């Protein structure tokens, strides 16, 4: 596993490096934006930890350049600028997660591991069901060509239902799969999740088969 740490503050960078090395990563460092952009453009990483306040080229610009160049490795932003405006801008620029400074190193390592786990280990990079295309690598989706940003839970829901070959999946089974339990509160949460997904994607994207459960509209391909 290769990780790129983009951080100009030496003490923080070293700490990150040691923590990620301890977690089993091979770590490379970039101390400024230009260096980071070059490394990200030419090397493949499994995860990038990106500071925003960088010399020469700011972190958000670096991230936008990578995404424009279709560099799709997961990126977690680590920034002292903890405003929500900045966080939203970071996520909209293509970051996969955002952590404000100062942070618990344990939390950072957990989040980095989460990003890698979600992004890795899938041979096929996309599944198409009707108008819906799931990108298993980026954990994102498009519907009729329109990009849809998904939370982990939403993605896992769609991923599970998409793999059922047109079979309707009950809320209880989904709760069991997603939460490991199937209490009433969990099945209620699944219903709320369906409402949210229909709103995000399209009302007709998820069908309800009365008495059976949910399935995706269109044929599995």
């Amino acid at each position, binding site marked *: 596993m290769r990780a790129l740490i983009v951080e100009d503050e030496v003490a923080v960078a070293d700490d990150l490096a040691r923590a990620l090395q301890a977690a089993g990563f091979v770590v490379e460092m970039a101390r400024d934006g230009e260096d980071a952009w070059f490394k990200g453009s030419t090397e493949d990483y499994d995860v990038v930890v990106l500071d925003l306040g960088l010399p020469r080229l700011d972190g958000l610009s670096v991230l936008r350049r990578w995404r424009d160049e279709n560099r799709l490795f997961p990126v977690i932003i680590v920034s002292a600028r903890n405003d929500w405006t900045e966080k939203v801008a970071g996520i909209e620029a293509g970051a996969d997660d955002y952590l404000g400074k*100062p942070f618990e*190193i344990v939390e950072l390592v*957990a989040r980095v591991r989460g990003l890698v786990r979600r992004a890795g280990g899938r041979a096929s990079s996309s599944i198409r069901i009707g108008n819906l295309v799931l990108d298993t690598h980026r954990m994102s989706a498009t519907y009729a060509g329109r990009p849809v940003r998904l*939370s982990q*839970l939403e993605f896992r829901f769609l991923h599970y239902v998409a793999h059922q070959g047109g079979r309707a999946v009950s809320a209880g089974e989904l709760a069991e799969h997603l939460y490991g339990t199937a209490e009433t509160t969990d099945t*209620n949460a699944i219903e709320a999740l369906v409402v*949210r997904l229909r709103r995000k994607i399209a009302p007709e994207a998820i069908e309800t088969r009365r008495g059976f459960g949910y399935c995706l509209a269109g044929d599995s391909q």
Partner: protein
Amino acid sequence: MKPRSLRVRLLLSAAVAVFLALAAAWLVMTVLFGRHIERRVQTDLVRDGMQLAANLSIGRDGLPLLNREPGDVRFGEPASGLYWQLTTPAGSLRSRSLWDQALPASKVVRAREWSTRSAGGPFEEQLLLVERVIRPDRDGPEVLIQLAIENKSLHEARREFGAELALFLLLLWVILSAASWSQVALGLRPLSRVRDALDALKRSPGERLAVAPAQEIEPLVRAINELADAREKDLVRARRRAADLAHALKTPLAAIAAQSRRARESGAHDAADGLDRAINAASAAVDRELARSRAAAIRASIGEVNSAALPAAEAVVGVVERAEFVAQVVFAVNVPPELVVPVAAEDLLELLGALIENAARYARRRVHIDGAESAEGRMLSVEDDGPGIDPGQMADALGRGARLDQAGGGHGLGLAIAQDLAEATGAQLQLARSELGGLKVTILWRKLTPG
């Protein structure tokens, strides 16, 4: 001591100045009137004297003789105050009004023209006396013609005139003072408008004074507006510096956290614990300070702002749902697309960010974000199915002076920040138990009631 009120000062000075001018006018007019009536009396006396001269002849005994006496009846009444006397070296002829008395003899007058002087009279009164020497016959003796009138009547006329004039001038003084009062009021009215505008400026530093109601006030209005601009710039700069400082502190804090980890790895657990506690306290203080400076900036912000609630809620959820700790949380956003709230977009992001992240952190499965507009006002609520806050602590948490970050249930700093921000935007933050089981936080922007 000078009066503090400009109005009173102007009124007093106007009243005093008008009073002095009118008093001077009274004095001059009384003197002029006195002289005028004296001249009139003098003319009358001279006319009577000419009449005497015209009817004058000298008797054989050298005494003056009158063919016809002047017509004024007062010459016939004893001590009437109006007298005549003709004197030759042989003796005098006098009006009956002199009775057995005589007019004071002329010491110096030998003039051929009429001359006037004051003199003591025969009946202990003061007299105004005109006299002249004529020679009726070329070879005859000279005759001193004297006519006199007592001064008392002149004085009385002058006093009466003075009193009437004083009364009139007093009335005039009152009228002029009233006029200057209204003039001062009229003149100060633009200043009171400026004062009202300044009150508005005090309430909202973004306000500016409108165009001056009078040309003379315009430089003042301009100066005040420039001062307000400068003050606002200073405020913005100070807040930006505070925010920059807070941001700048975060990276060193992260560096100290790295040192703490290293210390822990090398076995210095107590030192690392101490450092961690200090780091946590410092980061909480920095976050709180940033929220405060943001809240202060909101309070000072210019004009009315509105932003759509749904995109802000979705944007925040879009960030929060990336986090590892919300991997099992479903966000239900039920905010009408047309709902706008009176907050700037970035401030709404902060407000919702603090609440939604908080809710997500403690939620088990679900976080609901609802929005509505009702007769009461516009509201947004964030609720979760987590452990919530004990109802007893809820009341304490929103009590005056309480610190929400000390409230139970671990909801902590997020609520404190949200409360600061909500209050700055004129909203109320209400805590309640959610139907989902956890905490429900409602931000309510009450409708402004007219008046």
